């Protein structure tokens, strides 16, 4: 969706209202699936496999609805440049409503578990606290930022697709610990259910796609989208023609993952997997290079061989240091 929105902005094309609403709908359904998946993984890391099994069982309900809509469980490929591929018929709308009706009472239960279960709270309450100042300094985004009390949500701050019409309530807590991260995500589920129902009930009529220009004019654009894990940022540059000159993606995990090293200071070793799960890491999203520019120090770029040599030297030096 981010890419489609970016290219549409470059081409000066806007998707029809029905397509925008369907994009919003699918984005929220994806958030539901992602948060339920995350809840399971976190529960598993906390040694609470029962919750893992329950939440993944319930997640199948939303996957069924997604499959009814677009025919696939994981890659929806709903978005095309200029609109969406799939229409929400009455039948599909009914199946989505049905999935939400199943999930809503289950989520009430999950909220109860993450806020009241004594064993779970022992693993999460007061663990890995990040204060609002820390969160600001580390540049946290998405649910971990909101759990620390920062009101950060692209859906509300810079509405895209149909979010200007369907305004989500930004859920924040102040505790900033793991328990808060759990609570924020589970409470966001209710917000997503409300939005999904609202979109389905007020889906505008009209076309699914608008005509997309074959050639995109030259220019640059930055598009942000609130993915389930936080802000996803795309930079797209066009030199004109059919293919982009450059597409740079910054995934939410890349912003959040470094905070684990700070939050883990003073925590038990056994808490580290849970702290890592707390930012909802996507490891494949981390296969990126970060170039740090220090003021005055200039920057340095290492090639693959140099980086490898740097790693070997670093560990060799560390070994001699520990043996000495």
């Amino acid at each position, binding site marked *: 969706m981010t890419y489609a929105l970016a290219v549409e902005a470059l081409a000066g094309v806007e998707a029809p209202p029905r397509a925008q609403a369907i994009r919003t709908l699918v984005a929220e359904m994806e958030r539901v699936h992602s948060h339920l998946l995350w809840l*399971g993984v976190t529960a598993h890391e906390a040694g609470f496999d029962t919750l893992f*099994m329950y939440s*993944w069982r319930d997640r*199948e309900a939303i996957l069924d609805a997604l499959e009814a809509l677009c025919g696939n*469980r*994981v*890659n929806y490929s709903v978005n095309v440049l200029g609109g969406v591929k799939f229409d929400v018929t009455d039948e599909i709308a009914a199946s989505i409503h049905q999935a939400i009706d199943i999930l809503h009472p289950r989520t009430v239960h999950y909220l109860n578990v993450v806020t009241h279960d004594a064993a779970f709270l022992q693993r999460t309450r007061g663990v890995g606290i990040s204060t609002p100042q820390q969160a600001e300094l580390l540049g946290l985004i998405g649910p971990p930022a909101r759990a620390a009390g920062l009101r950060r949500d692209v859906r509300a701050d810079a509405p895209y697709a149909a979010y200007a019409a369907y305004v989500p309530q930004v859920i924040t807590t102040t505790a900033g610990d793991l328990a808060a991260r759990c609570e924020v995500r589970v409470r966001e589920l209710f917000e997503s259910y409300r939005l999904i129902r609202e979109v389905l009930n007020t889906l505008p009529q009209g076309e699914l796609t608008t005509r997309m220009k074959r050639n995109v004019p030259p220019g640059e654009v930055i598009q942000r989208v609130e993915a389930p894990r936080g802000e996803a940022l795309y930079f797209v540059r066009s030199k004109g023609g059919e293919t982009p000159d450059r597409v740079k993606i910054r995934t939410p995990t890349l912003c959040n993952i470094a905070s684990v090293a700070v939050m883990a200071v003073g925590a038990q070793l056994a808490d580290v997997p849970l702290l890592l799960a707390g930012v909802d890491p996507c490891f494949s999203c981390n296969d990126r290079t970060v170039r740090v520019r220090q003021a005055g120090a200039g920057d340095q770029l290492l090639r693959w061989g140099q980086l490898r040599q740097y790693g070997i030297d670093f560990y060799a030096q560390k070994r001699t240091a520990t043996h000495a």
Partner: protein
Amino acid sequence: MQNLILNALEKAKTWARLNSPWVLHYNSGSCNGCDIELLATITPRYDVERFGVKLAGSPRHADVLIATGPVTRQSRDRLLRIYQQMPEPRYVMALGACALGGGVFHNCYNTLGGIDAFLPVDVYVPGCPPRPEAIINGVVLLLQKLKGEAVPHGEPQPA
């Protein structure tokens, strides 16, 4: 007499293997899509633990290596090491389009190809990502192979 005992032992071992194929999952460069569907396969709706399929934490406890994703430069050595740590007989299942031949990462500078470029693959499960039903089908094919039955090749035959 000795042969008889060895035969009986071998049969018992096959029986045990058929009823508890423990799985080691290794992501050699996947986008996590296949990994999530593999995990979904062990959760209540699909629940392959009914058939004794269980994720093992260590390669030394595993019978089957399920590898997802293309083999990246970074992960090749680890993949081979994990495979070498597994006790024999060991089986390999390649899961998803990328594990089969590189998928969307085909000919990328940092990937080296599919799993079968490095390991002898017993079962290929295509899909991006494969549905849990497809993964279960792959396990069934593997069990047939373990039993020494003929495994269908090419187009699926009508039942």
